[in-house]
């Protein structure tokens, strides 16, 4: 049977969040950066679910995870649309090419 203390889930979520943050800062492809963002949201979801399991009085944590899921879907849709629009202008998805606002 798989069981682990809540603390183990929190440590795992912290590690996943760090991996996602590293990807956003260090990778140069916008698509990979967006996927790293999804990793960070997943880590937050894991914390919410583990917290709800630790205090199972009401399923508020799971409801909040559901809302985060919907927000992540909306974020992915808008982010991918922005990537496509950017590709139309610059013919690349490299984040370093997005310097048009630089004075």
């Amino acid at each position, binding site marked *: 049977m798989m069981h682990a203390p809540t603390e183990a889930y929190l440590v795992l979520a912290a590690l*996943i969040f760090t991996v996602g943050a590293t990807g956003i800062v260090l990778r140069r492809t916008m*698509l990979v950066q967006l996927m790293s963002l*999804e990793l960070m949201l997943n880590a937050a979801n894991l914390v919410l679910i583990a917290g709800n399991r630790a205090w199972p009085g009401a399923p508020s944590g799971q409801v909040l995870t559901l809302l985060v899921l919907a927000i992540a879907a909306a974020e992915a849709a808008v982010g991918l649309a922005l990537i496509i629009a950017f590709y139309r202008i610059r013919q690349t*998805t490299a984040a370093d090419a997005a310097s*048009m606002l630089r004075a």
Partner: protein
Amino acid sequence: MEGASTLLPGLAWLVLASLTLLTAVLTVTSRSPLRGACALLGHIVALSLLFLALSAEFLAVLQILVYGGATVVLFIFVMMLLGGEALPPPLAPRPRWAVALFAAAGVSLAVTMAGAFVFAALPARPDTPAGFGTVASVGGSLFREHFVAFELVGILLTAAMVSAIAITRSRGWHEVPAASQASAAGGNGGGGGEPANAKAWVGRQPG
């Protein structure tokens, strides 16, 4: 169900957790974004198994449906739409010390958290009430206590859909800097005599 004897996570949990972490690392480090998306899919499946271990059945199913079925497919669809040339050429990699800095930050964060939990443990996890994590319990809470949030998320999703369509509609004047004028306006045709910093009609096919 689980007493104080199980302070350490079980072996199966450790395997699953390391699989989740490994797929997350692969998502970030893959050179090809398509491989990254596949690793993200594996990460999502492993994470939904962790949700099952936390007796959140409904969310586990929903995680695979929404993330694996919709979001990852959307990513792969965009990669297919943009094609291989959309991926930036392999530039000089980030300096090693930056990667090492982030790895050290993550590891020290995890070690600090684990150390803190040794001294201040969370209260013992109670057994779940009957029906915990089922569709009925989550849905009941969603439509009673959190109904306003549910409606607001509906509005948010509609707004996101409309804005995604509006952003990608590619009709309108875009200011294109002089440096990229040649590449961006090259396919337009008939715009040969434009001044260097003119506004370019982007996205509309000629004729």
